[in-house]
């Protein structure tokens, strides 16, 4: 048996239960959180190692054979996502040690965080479409609560949009599952993929495919139903924002990758074409929205949307190279985006604002922090030799290979506009002198902040990850290539789950 495939779900669940049990002691909760994050990362690495060796790691829950029981399965993409979840979880856990206000901790910040991580891991590992829905909801419920923790007016307003759009998406997801079950009579994703490949592709299959696309598209913040994201992501605690920015929308992207490589591949020219235009418009609206913003976190929120577009583009082009690019992009994006949000949190701690107009002078007084911003920012914009360059390069090259000129041009333009946004932040926050009337005692170091180094620790770690991906492009590319190879060949997945080759 291979317990490593369920450990990434069990560890956060156990940590969540333990932090609940230690409700009264915030110190114990912090240490449990830190320990559990390390354990989650370790379990993720074990799983990655195991999937590299065996290809697929499968476990049938409760020993009920597929397709009757619930399957938990990890292929390389799942394992990569779990490792990234572990990295982000650890970074956020360390950051939260010092940056979480007492009020949040007392209202269950840590248990909710673990529940969220359990939901995310469960979504990545589920081999059953209804089980995927359940994990989505676990994740959503935890995210609702984390989003509103603190109870400020802006949080309430943002949460109403977030909750409404996400519940709407869940209802579509559920309806699609019902219709799909009515057609093929199974919920096991491998079995669905197998059965759909056997029957002739009808219009009804496309309808269901589009329902999945809309539902996951909302969760991934793709065009046109993305507006819940910029309305809500800048309202909660910065650690929560960073966690959401890194992981939540990517769960939607992962689900799209899974569903549209395994199940709905019968009419690619129809489904993936729609995805292609959605991807192009997502990139464009995201980056144009960011250009109009002058608030640190809102700019970053809009950039999540434009980056989601690149990942969808990788899936929509649906060539081996494009999928490699998409997987590479997901890896790069999760790390970089979380890092940037955490930088904005540190800047807020130094200067007490997120408004670009009220910020300044960080480079002069804290050059180290400026470097920690510059590396992920330039990586996001796609400058060599950082991780974002390779990610963009592969996708654009894939676009040129299939001669999809328009979307390729859009992708290049969006890269340029991303650079503009990053330069805007750089010029306003780091380069220009501190505006008059700003309290600079924390920035210039007059007021010592003994815990600052703990907050900087995850930033340094994530920056090193970005550099590592950038400087070791080849091995990471090979990993992404293996993952993409598995995605493009669903027969392996089906055989691993059902034990028969289609």
């Amino acid at each position, binding site marked *: 048996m291979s317990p490593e495939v369920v450990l990434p779900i069990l560890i956060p669940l156990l940590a969540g239960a333990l932090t609940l049990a230690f409700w009264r002691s915030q110190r114990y909760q912090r240490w449990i959180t830190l320990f559990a994050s390390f354990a989650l990362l370790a379990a993720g690495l074990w799983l990655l190692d195991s999937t590299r060796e065996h290809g697929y790691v499968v476990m049938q829950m409760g020993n009920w054979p597929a397709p009757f029981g619930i399957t938990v399965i990890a292929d390389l993409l799942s394992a990569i996502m779990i490792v990234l979840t572990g990295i982000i979880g650890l970074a956020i856990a360390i950051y939260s040690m010092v940056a979480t206000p007492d009020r949040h901790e007392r209202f269950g910040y840590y248990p909710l965080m673990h529940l969220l991580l359990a939901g995310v891991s469960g979504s990545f590992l589920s081999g059953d479409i209804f089980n995927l829905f359940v994990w989505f909801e676990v994740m959503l419920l935890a995210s609702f609560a984390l989003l*509103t923790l603190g109870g400020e*007016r802006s949080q*309430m*307003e943002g949460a*109403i949009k977030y*909750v409404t759009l996400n519940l709407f998406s*869940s209802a579509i997801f559920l309806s699609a599952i*019902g219709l799909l079950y009515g057609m093929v009579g199974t919920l096991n994703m491998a079995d669905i993929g197998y059965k759909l490949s056997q029957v002739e592709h009808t219009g009804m299959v496309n309808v269901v495919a589009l329902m999945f696309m809309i539902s996951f598209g909302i969760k991934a913040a793709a065009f046109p139903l993305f507006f819940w994201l910029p309305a809500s992501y800048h*309202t909660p605690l910065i650690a929560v924002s960073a966690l959401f920015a890194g992981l939540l929308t990517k769960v939607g992207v992962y689900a799209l990758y899974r569903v549209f490589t395994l199940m709905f591949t019968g009419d690619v020219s129809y489904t993936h074409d729609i995805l292609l235009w959605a991807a192009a418009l997502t990139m464009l609206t995201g980056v144009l*929205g960011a250009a109009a913003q002058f608030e640190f976190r809102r700019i970053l929120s809009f950039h999540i949307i434009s980056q989601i577009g690149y990942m969808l583009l990788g899936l929509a082009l649906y060539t081996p190279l494009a999928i490699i690019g998409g997987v590479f992009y997901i890896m790069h994006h999760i790390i970089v985006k979380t890092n940037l949000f955490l930088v904005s949190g540190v800047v807020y701690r130094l200067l007490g604002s997120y408004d670009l107009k009220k910020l300044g002078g960080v480079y002069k007084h804290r050059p180290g922090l400026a470097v920690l911003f510059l590396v992920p920012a330039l990586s996001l914009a796609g400058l060599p030799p950082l991780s974002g360059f390779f990610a963009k390069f592969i996708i654009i090259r894939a676009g040129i290979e299939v001669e999809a000129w328009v979307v390729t041009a859009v992708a290049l333009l969006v890269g340029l506009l991303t650079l503009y946004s990053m330069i805007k932040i750089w010029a306003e926050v780091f380069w220009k002198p501190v505006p008059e009337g700003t309290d600079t005692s924390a920035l210039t170091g007059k007021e010592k902040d003994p815990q600052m180094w703990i907050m900087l620790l995850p930033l340094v770690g994530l920056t090193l990850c970005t550099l590592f991906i950038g400087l070791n492009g080849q091995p990471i590319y090979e990993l992404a290539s293996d993952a993409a190879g598995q995605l493009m060949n669903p027969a392996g997945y089906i055989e691993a789950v059902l034990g028969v080759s289609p």
Partner: protein
Amino acid sequence: METLMAYVVGILFASAIYMMLRRSIVKLVIGLIILSNAANLLIFAAAGMTRGAPPLIPEGATAPLGPIADPLPQALILTAIVIAFGVLAFAVVLIHRAYEVVGNDDLDQMKDTDT
């Protein structure tokens, strides 16, 4: 029966979306409740309806005699109801808090975080 159900599901979806498009947050939550019920009913209808044949195996037999109703959709619906209960309980708490903080239930007054 399925045809009737299809119409009911359609009407429920339509009224849910109509409610969600109103300005009041209370109506928004009512819309969400109807929406989740519509989805549940859709599963029930899409998976096919069999009357008067519970999926029970008589004593002594190892397989059911004759055609039976599919128990799985009902299990799905039960799970979905439980989840919807949790999520909607949260939504009710949320609109209550939002009402307290904002001071009225007009969604048009909640545009500060929009861009």
